[in-house]
C-alpha cells in the first residue's frame, strides 16, 4: 500500500514541477522544452514501477521497468542479432530498394502527363490499403529468411514515396520553369538544378513516413514465418512462453531503432533543405 501511495505522490510531484516549469517565464527556452517531457516520461516510469511492485502485478501481465531493463542488459547479444536480422537486413535493404525504385519510377512517370494523371490516384489508393497483408504471399515466394522481409518492405514503402515524389516534382511554378528555359537549360539541367531541389521537402515527407512503415513491414512479416532469429520471431515466441520482459525489451529495441531511423532522415533533410521556410524557423 505504501508503494501505491508513493506512486500517487510521485505523480502529483511530477505534475506540479511540470506545471511550475510550463507556466514559468522561462517556458520558451530550449532547456525547459526538453526538461518537461523528460520529467513526464520519468514520472510515468516511476509510477509504473511503484504500481507494479505495490499491487504485486504478475510478470505475465506487466513487468516492471527495472525488470525490463535488467532483461535488456542481460540479453544484449540476442537483441543485437535480432536487430541485425530484422532492421539492418530486412528493413534497411528493403527501404533502400523500395525508395530507390519509387524515386526512379517517379522521375519516369513525371515525363508523361498522361501517366501521372493515371498513376497518382492509383498510387494514393494503394497507399491507403493494408499492404502488410501481402506478407504471407511474399514469405511463400522468397522463403523464410530476410529476403522476404525486404520484399514486404519494398512493397510497403513504394507507393507513399512514389506519390509524394510525383507531387513534389510538380511543385515548381511556371515562372521558375520559364526562367530555366530562357537560360536554355536542358531537361536534366532544369531537373537537377530546379525541380529536384524544389521537390525535396515532399520527397523527405514520403521518406519519413516510409521509415515507420519499413519497420512495421519487417516485424509483421516475421509473424508469418522466419528463421529462428529476428525481432518479430522473438516477440511471437516470447509471448508464447509468457516471457513478457523479453517482449518489452524487443519493443524497446524497436522504439529506439524507429526513432533513430526517423531522426536520421530528419537530419539528412535538415542539411539538404536548409533553404526551405519550414527549416528556417
Amino acid at each position, binding site marked *: 500500500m505504501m508503494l501505491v501511495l508513493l506512486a500517487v505522490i510521485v505523480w502529483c510531484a511530477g*505534475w506540479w514541477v*511540470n*506545471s511550475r*516549469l*510550463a*507556466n514559468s517565464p522561462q*517556458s520558451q527556452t530550449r532547456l*525547459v*522544452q526538453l526538461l*518537461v*517531457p523528460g*520529467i*513526464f*516520461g520519468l514520472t510515468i516510469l516511476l509510477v509504473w514501477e511503484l504500481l507494479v511492485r505495490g499491487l504485486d502485478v504478475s510478470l*505475465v*501481465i*506487466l513487468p516492471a521497468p527495472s525488470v525490463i531493463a535488467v532483461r535488456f542488459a542481460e540479453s544484449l547479444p540476442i537483441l543485437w542479432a535480432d536487430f541485425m536480422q530484422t532492421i539492418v537486413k530486412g528493413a534497411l535493404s528493403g527501404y533502400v530498394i523500395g525508395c530507390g525504385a519509387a524515386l526512379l519510377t517517379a522521375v519516369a512517370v513525371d515525363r508523361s502527363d*498522361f*501517366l501521372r*494523371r*493515371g*498513376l497518382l*490516384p*492509383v498510387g494514393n*489508393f494503394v497507399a*491507403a*490499403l*493494408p499492404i*502488410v*497483408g*501481402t506478407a*504471407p*504471399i511474399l*514469405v*511463400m*515466394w522468397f522463403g523464410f529468411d530476410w529476403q522476404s522481409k525486404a520484399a514486404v518492405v519494398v512493397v510497403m514503402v513504394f507507393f507513399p514515396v512514389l506519390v509524394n515524389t510525383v507531387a513534389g516534382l510538380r511543385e515548381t511554378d511556371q515562372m521558375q520553369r520559364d526562367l530555366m528555359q530562357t537560360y536554355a537549360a536542358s531537361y536534366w539541367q532544369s531537373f537537377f538544378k530546379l525541380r529536384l531541389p524544389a521537390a525535396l521537402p515532399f520527397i523527405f515527407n514520403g521518406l519519413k513516413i516510409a*521509415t*515507420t512503415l519499413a*519497420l*512495421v513491414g519487417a*516485424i*509483421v512479416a516475421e*509473424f*508469418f*514465418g522466419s528463421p529462428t532469429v529476428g*525481432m*518479430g520471431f522473438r*516477440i*511471437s515466441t516470447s*509471448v508464447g512462453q*509468457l516471457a*513478457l520482459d523479453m*517482449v518489452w525489451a524487443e*519493443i524497446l529495441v*524497436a522504439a529506439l531503432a*524507429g*526513432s533513430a*531511423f*526517423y*531522426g536520421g532522415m530528419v537530419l539528412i533533410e535538415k542539411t539538404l533543405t536548409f533553404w526551405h521556410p519550414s527549416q528556417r524557423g
Partner: protein
Amino acid sequence: MKSLTAILTVVAAIIGLWYAACVPMNIKGVLDAAERAGAEVTPATARERRDMGEFGLVAGNSFAIADTWVQDRPRLPAPHQVAVELWNTTVEKKITSKRSLIYHGQVTLSATLLGFAIGTGLGILLAVGIVHSKVMDMSVMPWAIVSQTIPIIALAPMIIVVLYSIGVQGLLPKAIISAYLSFFPVVVGMVKGLRSPDHMQLDLLKTYNASTAQGFWKLRLPSSMPYLFASLKIGIAASLVGAIVGELPTGAVAGLGARLLAGSYYGQTVQIWSALFAAALLAAALVALLGVIERVLLGRMGVRS
C-alpha cells in the same frame, strides 16, 4: 474525363502485367502436372527443369502458357481466379458459413470500427486537453509525436495474450490494438486543427468577451474539421491493419487476418489473395465513406474545397 481514361489505362496495364507475371511464376508447377498427366514436356524430368530458368521453360513449352492461368494452387493466381474466388465466397456462400468472406470481413470490420471509435474518441479528448493546458502540451505532445516513429504494432501479440490472461477475449483485444493505432494520428492531427484559427480570429472572439468554451465550440472545433478528417482517414486505415494483425496470434479463428494465416499454412494462394482483396476493398470503402461524410459535413459548414 481525361484522368479517367488515364486511370483506366494504368489499371489495365497493371492487370496485363499481372497476367504476364503468372506465366513464369507458375510454369514449373504446370509442367510438373503435365508430365504426371503424360504430356510431352521439353526437359523431360523435374530434376532437369529445376536448373532451368523460368523463361527458358516458357519458351520451350509454349503449349503450357494457357494452363498457367487456371492452375488449382498456383504460386501467383491470375486475376480472374481471384475474382471468381471473391465472388464465390461472398455472394454464393451463405453469410453464416465459415468459408464466407462476408462473415470474416464482418468480424474484422466490427473490431476495426469499435477500435476506431475508442481511438478517435480518446484522441480527440487528449487533443482538447493539450490545446487548453500548457502543461499537457509540453509534457505529452513530444511523446505523441515520437510515438508515431515507433512500430507500435509490435505490441499486438502481447496485448492479445495479456488481455487473454486476465480474462478478456473476443472482440475487445483486437479493438484495443486498432484503437491505439488510430489514436496517435488523430491526436496529432486534431491538435494541429484546433490550433489552426489564427490570432486575428481568436482576438475577435476575445473582443466579443467569449468564454473559452464558446471559443472552442464556435471557432476551434469547426475550423479543426478538415484536419480531423485528414487524420481520420489515416486512422481508419491504421485501425484495419491493427485488427488484421491482431487476429494473427489468436490462432486464426475468424476474420480476414485469420484467412490470410490459414491460407499461408495450407498453401491456399487463391484464398490469401481473395482475403487480401477483401481487406483492400474494405479499407477503400471505409476511407471513401469518410470522404463522403467529410464532403457533406464541410459542405453544410460552408467550407469551400
